């Protein structure tokens, strides 16, 4: 039996014990963005629909008709309906053709949910980023979530469960997805065709999210990282860097890079605190060469960077914000 999802140990074990009889009618997958919630939902749906006989729900053979209809990216299975993002309530009498309407609405769903399965098994609905559903759309599904028709399984995903109606949340079984481990991110990146070195760097910057790792390895971001880091090391050496990095688009991200470097400096080189390893692995050797730092100026700098982050949210000129940070960084 196959189940091609990297990571998600807890959810795997959780569903690994359930059978077609004990599976509940609706699950809510929560966890940080980019840890594989939607992928898991798709593969779970495939498992439930797979025709191969098996004891527990998890796993599929990949060769039956059902599995062939569910592709890597797009699905053509008539008993699997996927919808991602802003769900609207929809018009009362709007007709909907399965897999043809460009936007699925709550009313479509309610109608679809009461239909019989095509292949005689489950009917599965994967609703991604359900927190983007309009309140009316979400409310219209409430009573259904409470007492659904048989043989229907709903798989909802969200990165911010706090934005859901609490009445919805309490009707679903919540399954938490942990952040990915570094090794798991490396595995995913390798699958995507990155070499080991790149994959390691991406994993270190990923914060446990595959989406983030991919973004971090994009050319734009890598360039900004180098630019900000060069600037940072110039400043703490006491020099005045010639080239700034701050613009409206790069400000938030740049400040975060500065904060990470500052944090790493404290973790690696301060009296009394020194513990753990750097978050910015690619700069670790350079950070280790920095002078020792005392707690007072470190905390002072962190506080100021925090303030700069708040300023960045207001209408302050990016150049001024970066200047403010430059002056608050400790110099020899």
């Amino acid at each position: 039996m196959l189940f091609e999802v990297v990571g998600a140990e807890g959810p795997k074990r959780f569903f690994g014990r359930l059978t077609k009889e004990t599976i509940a009618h609706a699950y809510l997958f929560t966890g940080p963005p980019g840890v594989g919630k939607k992928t898991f939902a798709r593969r779970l749906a495939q498992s439930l629909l797979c025709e191969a006989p098996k004891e527990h729900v998890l796993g599929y053979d990949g060769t039956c008709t059902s599995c062939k209809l569910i592709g890597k990216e797009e699905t053509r299975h008539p008993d699997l309906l996927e919808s991602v993002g802003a769900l609207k309530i929809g018009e009362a009498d709007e007709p909907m053709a399965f897999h043809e309407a460009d936007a699925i609405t709550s009313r479509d769903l309610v109608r679809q949910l009461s239909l019989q399965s095509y292949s005689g098994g489950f009917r599965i609905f994967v609703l991604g980023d359900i927190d983007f559903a309009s309140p009316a759309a979400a409310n219209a599904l409430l009573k259904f979530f409470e007492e659904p028709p048989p043989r229907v399984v709903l798989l909802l995903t969200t990165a911010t469960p706090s934005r859901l109606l609490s009445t919805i949340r309490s009707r679903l079984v919540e399954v938490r997805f942990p952040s990915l481990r570094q090794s798991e991110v490396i595995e995913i990146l390798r699958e995507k065709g990155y070499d080991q070195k790149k994959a390691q760097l991406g994993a270190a910057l990923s914060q446990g999210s595959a989406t983030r790792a991919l973004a971090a390895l994009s050319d734009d971001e890598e360039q900004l990282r180098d630019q900000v880091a060069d600037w940072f090391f110039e400043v703490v050496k006491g020099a005045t860097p010639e080239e700034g990095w701050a613009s409206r688009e790069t400000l938030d991200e740049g400040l975060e890079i500065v904060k990470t470097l500052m944090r790493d400096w404290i973790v690696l080189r301060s009296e009394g605190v020194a513990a753990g390893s750097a978050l910015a692995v690619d700069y670790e050797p350079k950070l280790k060469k920095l002078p020792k730092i005392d707690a007072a100026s470190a905390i002072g700098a962190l506080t100021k960077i925090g303030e700069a982050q708040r300023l960045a949210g207001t209408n302050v000129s990016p150049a001024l914000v970066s200047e403010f940070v430059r002056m608050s960084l400790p110099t020899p």
Partner: protein
Amino acid sequence: MSLYRDWRPKSFADLVGQEAVVRTLTSAISSGKLAHAYLFSGPRGSGKTSAAKILARCIDCVNGPTPTPDNTCENCVAMLSGTALDVLEIDAASNRGIDEIRALRDAVKFAPSSMRMKVYIIDEAHMLTKEGANAFLKTLEEPPPHAVFILATTEPEKLPLTILSRCQRYAFRRIAIPVMIERMREIAAAEKIAIDDSALSAIAYRADGGLRDALTMLEQAAAFADGKIDAATVELAFGASGRTYARGLLDRAIARDPAGVLKTIDEASDAGTDMQVLIRGMIAEFRNLLVARIDPELLARDLAPADAQAAVGRSKELTQAQIVRALRLLAEALSTVRSSGNPRLELETTLLRFTLAAEDPTLDAIAARVSVLEQGAPPPPAAPAKAAPAKAEAPPPRAQAAVEPVATNGPVTIQKVRSAWQSIRTRVEGERQSLRTQLSRAVPEAIEGNALVIKLPNAVLAETLKDNAKMIEDAIAEVLGTPLRARFKVEASAKNAVAAPPEDPDALLSYINERMT
């Protein structure tokens, strides 16, 4: 069929955690004072729909109206199976428009088919459209004598005021943790689910006041576990809640151990804990500490007894200003995370700032440090404050770092008492906060034989302290290692002397009060 549907309470006696609502409803029913419209409001999983279903049976039971429907007569059986023609449960979220309400209004007129009354249960009432709600108004105000409406909603503030004023309102409360644990224990026993106490409380915390959430989780945990359900199973089934890590982090932060903080965060991150959840967890923990400092009894609703006790213990290690500062820093971190930041980085830097408060130049941090000095509480790493209470010969456990150390042997002099006075005060205030004002005005004056003379500016203050002399004597004995009797003396010239206003804010307040009256 899920547990929460199987175990929907069938009588008011089974409806847990809503004593006030149940009492009012039962006495209204037994005295025959039924209203024609009810509004049940309260958070999810608190029992609104269940109460509405019970109330419907109270009204239409063959032996009714009675607060204890028998659930066996034909009417009750029909209602329990959802086939009663005269009890209509309407989902207002999908039947929310004016047309649906018009249909309802037309149908209300007809007399019930077999039962005494027609009962309309309108669930999710807040989702009625404006037009729908308005079309409903006249019917709701003066329905035919055979109709009763029960509206249930989680968001009563979304209903128009004109609806609210036509209904009798019952506010349902969140289910308290201990009540929830008891109910789950009962159900688990009946369903033959083996579960231990730690798992029960782990589920109860996650449920966050909603009994339905708790039962859903109980059921899933039971399907998941091989044998007995314990806290580890719950963690595995529903992901780490971060509570364990939040507690660990809290202890490291209180102990002013920045390296320990970083290590714990690293471990949590390795275990795949969502850092944003962890930040929220820390906020909850600090909030508990704050409540523990203000009034420990309030914690009973939110925490299991053992956890409440631990929170009270921890809260003694921090001043109120320190806790408030931590909360503010964490709230800032959370808002930064929401807009862009890296949750782990924010949590780390926040806790570094908190633990290294001594180095933090902001006003906030300084205020927190002042509060520590005022209280005379020790900076925790120096002296583990959890040491067992001193016996007669044991050295003082709360040797104050701020004041000069107190010798444990040798004769007790008034200087020694004065330098230790702050810690004696802290100790007494720890026992009884209300004595703060009196103590702030008390001055140890002299040692006479084995008695300590304490000077006070007026007789009222002296009286209050005299009533608590035993406690003060105990504190003196504990701090100085030598028992002394406490004698209180009223300062003779206090009335006339134009003393400089005291510095301590509490004392200043009573000083002002005295002069005003």
